[in-house]
């Protein structure tokens, strides 16, 4: 203890000096905060102010500093002292900017500021400066699973950035679907004609690249370890299994075309002249620019493209989603016909023509060539004479009996992701009455064969696509340093897949570098703290291992948790889950938050000054509060906000402690969960909320009203509504009356 030295620094700039009684804050830090050094500076984040702190660290031996100035999200570069534990008292965004500058507000505003000084002092005393994860892996080789356009792009991009790559492909050649195309949708001005796929160039580049090692006819037999030190067994067909040391993984396993055999009403299987888009590419490749011939050798004079075949299906029988690329693909294929022979009748039957990217120009180019686009829903394709008859409902003319004759029909079937085993279904209890898998149905084969306790593959989201934070971090899966790219993540075309793979490769490189430095990957990128458990107190309940959204915690033979620090994203969900509270981070623990809760001065019940605790997610809710402050959106002086890493890290003890010590209410602010989740830790806010639902039983036991705990979904954009919600809640708590626990 003797080597610890605590200091508090109070800033008087940005109007703090005019609005607050700084001398009183100093006294609070000294007497109640028990800080050995307390200094005030008129402009703390200036060079001079920072130099003052640095001098104290160097000559006075300050190890812990409470900086009472602006929000912890502001001036992070100025207040960066790597060897010193820092807590920030938020006097600017947390107090003066959200309080009116009036005489009657002065007293409560000052009380608010004093509490934040107390909290910062209490927090810093409970912290230690993290030293970083010692259990690092230094390997910087990227494993790319899948040798299609996405995989090849990821490999080439990583190699260009100077990293070694191991590229594993299941089949005997690289190129994937793109290698089977005649041409691809144009990527350049004027977007009028199909262009070369570019696969040959990529193959040559990979062959010539000494950084890329390719395994063909190979699959991943086993993936163990953690970011920076994965050990991956690669099973090569008719050869020995090779083990590679890997730093990070890009899964670019792509898609399979939806089985057109499930569409007998559209003639597939009944006539050889009904093909899917891949089938048409094969015919076009065979024709090589000449007139396209059918399977029976007859030159095609009329062709009908059926869009959304087995896609966007509301009946639940086929794919419910749009695969995004098929409209452009059909346009491209219709142009194959028109370019070979302008007299071929090419008709595209669509319900909504969706041409992302620059597809609109391409669409016009096809119309200019005379491809006919008709809005209609195809009901049936039947063999008629030598060709086929397509029956459809013309949606513009509302003609239910419209019909076209064609030599060839092309079905635009959708993309089905190759995402391996759905690990959620492995753990889901068997529901009674649920159908067993049909006879002959192929059971999905694991792709990564991870040795993680949570299952062998990365988690899936909707319709079998791999999970990722759709809006903000599309490549991040729930397995650190494993990134999904290309159509395995969502349906997409070649251009999007290339972009995707490049992004994923860059993220994978970041993850390897962070792992090597013992730091967290996204979203707490650069965080040196990591969870540790006091195992002598552990009851082996396994909640932490089950709840960890990232599969970071395994169990040893005695069912104690084993942390894989480099897989960890530092959300603290394990800490929130632990019923005996043995899990903590050096700078974020049950104590650091608990001490802040206890530090707040609770006025007695006769003062009519309620105290409401806000536990706000640092990713969305806390920034929303900061931005509300920036806009000077005022709110009540009775709230005390503490940022938490995620709602998932909120341990129920904080809430019971707060209510026990006389707080009148607790507001929890976290991200949206569920289907369109916004949680930066994917499952954190959901798990946190589930845990909080149990708090109400505790409230009942304490004889408290359930309204004393409020769970609020907050997005970063709520800066204008949030202050009103806070005020409403304060009013409600005042209506209910003071907590009976005051003064105990």
């Amino acid at each position: 203890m003797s080597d610890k030295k605590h200091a508090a620094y109070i800033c008087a700039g940005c109007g703090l000096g005019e609005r607050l009684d700084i001398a009183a804050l100093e006294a609070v830090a000294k007497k109640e905060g028990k800080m050995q050094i307390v200094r005030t500076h008129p402009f703390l984040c200036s060079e001079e102010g920072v130099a003052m702190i640095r001098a104290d660290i160097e000559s006075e031996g300050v190890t812990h500093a409470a900086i009472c100035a602006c929000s912890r999200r502001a001036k992070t570069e100025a207040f960066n002292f790597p060897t010193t534990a820092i807590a920030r008292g938020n006097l600017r965004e947390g107090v003066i900017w959200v309080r009116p500058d009036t005489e009657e507000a002065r007293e409560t505003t000052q009380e608010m500021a004093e509490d934040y000084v107390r909290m910062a002092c209490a927090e810093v005393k409970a912290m230690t400066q993290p030293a970083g994860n010692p259990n690092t892996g230094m390997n910087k080789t990227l494993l790319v699973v899948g040798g299609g356009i996405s995989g090849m792009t990821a490999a080439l991009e990583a190699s260009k950035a100077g990293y070694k790559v191991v590229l594993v492909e299941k089949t005997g050649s690289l190129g994937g679907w793109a290698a089977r195309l005649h041409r691809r949708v144009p990527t350049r001005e004027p977007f009028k004609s199909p262009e070369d796929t570019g696969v040959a160039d990529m193959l040559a580049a990979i062959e010539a690249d000494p950084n890329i090692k390719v395994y063909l006819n190979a699959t991943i037999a086993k993936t163990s370890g953690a970011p920076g030190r994965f050990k991956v067994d690669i099973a090569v067909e008719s050869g020995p299994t090779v083990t590679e040391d890997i730093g990070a993984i890009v899964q670019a396993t792509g898609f399979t075309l939806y089985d057109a055999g499930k569409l007998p009403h559209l003639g597939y299987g009944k006539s050889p002249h009904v093909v899917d888009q891949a089938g048409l590419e094969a015919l076009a490749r065979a024709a090589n620019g000449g007139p396209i011939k059918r399977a029976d050798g007859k030159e095609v004079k009329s062709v009908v493209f059926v869009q959304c075949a087995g896609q966007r299906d509301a009946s639940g029988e086929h794919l419910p989603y749009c695969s995004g690329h098929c409209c452009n693909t059909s346009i491209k294929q219709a142009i194959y016909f028109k370019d070979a022979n302008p007299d071929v009748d090419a008709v595209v039957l669509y319900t909504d023509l969706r041409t992302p990217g620059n597809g609109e120009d391409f669409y016009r180019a096809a119309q200019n060539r005379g491809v006919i686009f008709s809005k209609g829903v195809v009901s049936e394709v039947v063999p008629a004479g030598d060709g086929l008859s397509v029956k459809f409902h013309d949606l513009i003319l509302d003609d239910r009996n419209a019909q076209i004759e064609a030599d060839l029909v092309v079905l635009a079937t959708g993309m089905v992701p190759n995402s391996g085993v759905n690990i959620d279904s492995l753990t889901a209890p068997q529901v009674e009455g649920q159908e067993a898998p049909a006879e002959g149905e192929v059971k999905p084969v694991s792709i990564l064969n991870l040795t993680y306790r949570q299952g062998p593959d990365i988690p899936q989201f909707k319709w079998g696509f791999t999970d990722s934070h759709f809006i903000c971090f599309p490549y991040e899966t729930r397995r650190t340093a494993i990134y999904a790219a290309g159509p395995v993540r969502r349906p997409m075309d070649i251009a999007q897949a290339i972009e995707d793979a490049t992004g994923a490769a860059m993220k994978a490189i970041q993850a390897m570098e962070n792992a090597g430095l013992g730091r967290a990957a996204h979203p707490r990128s650069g965080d040196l703290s990591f969870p540790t458990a006091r195992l002598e107190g552990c009851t082996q309940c396994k909640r932490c291992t089950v709840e960890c959204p990232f599969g970071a915690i395994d169990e040893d033979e005695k069912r104690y948790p084993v942390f894989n620090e480099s897989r960890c994203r530092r959300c603290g969900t394990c800490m929130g889950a632990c019923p005996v509270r043995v899990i903590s981070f050096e700078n974020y623990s049950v104590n650091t938050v608990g001490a802040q809760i206890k530090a707040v001065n609770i006025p007695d019940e006769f003062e009519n000054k309620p105290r409401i605790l806000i536990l706000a997610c640092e990713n969305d809710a806390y920034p929303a509060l900061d931005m509300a402050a920036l806009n000077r959106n005022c709110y009540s002086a009775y709230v005390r906000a503490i940022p938490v890493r995620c709602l998932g890290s909120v341990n129920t003890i904080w809430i019971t402690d707060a209510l026990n010590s006389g707080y009148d209410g607790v507001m929890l602010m976290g991200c949206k969960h569920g289907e369109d989740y916004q949680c930066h830790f994917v499952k954190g806010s959901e798990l946190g909320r589930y845990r909080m639902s149990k708090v109400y039983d505790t409230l009942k036991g304490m004889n408290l009203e359930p309204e004393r705990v409020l769970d609020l979904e907050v997005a970063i954009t709520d800066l204008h509504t949030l202050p009103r919600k806070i005020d409403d809640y304060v009013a409600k708590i005042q209506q209910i009356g003071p907590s009976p626990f005051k003064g105990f």
Partner: protein
Amino acid sequence: MSELNQQMAARYKNNFLKEIEEQAEMGEWVKMCMQCGVCSGSCPTHFHPGWEHPPQEIFMMIRAGKREEVLTSPSMWMCTSCYNCYVRCPRKLPITHIMHGIAEYAYRLGLAPKMQPTLHLSQTFWNNCIKTGRVNEVRLTQSLYFKDGFMAGIKKGLEMKDVALGLIKAKRLNILEALGFGHKCKDVQGIHRMLAKARELEAKRKGAKAQAA
């Protein structure tokens, strides 16, 4: 006229879209329609019961090969040339002009609806104005008033007599035009030669198009 119709029908067989592209003024734009329906939604006469098929539908019918239905339709004749569709079309199709082009083609084939008011006005106006190069307003008004018979014409004339007298007083209407006097172009022969040349060029262009087909 119906002979031309038979010729065209035979030449293009089932490809009505191609026929419109080659024969109707601005017909080459029809294929570029993307069926968004903005034209139909923008048309002020769409709420009028006479507009059987709005432009979007006409275009679709052309693509679907509904030759007879399109060419005999009164719909294109209902266009008031307000240019709302033209301005709003996201594909920049000159829809107003296309409507006129199709209407004119239908007229050429002799399939346009008989006694359709717009058609009647256009025809009367044209025949009137090419005579001297300027419109003979009295005769144009007469032929429009007496379109539905002698008694109806008298009735209409009486209804409008105050307006006519006012115009005469203000010297905006020369009553002598009824006898063939009144304003005309300085070089009437020149106008006639110009129109003849235009017809010749038009025929040449259409012939070339048909040849290319």
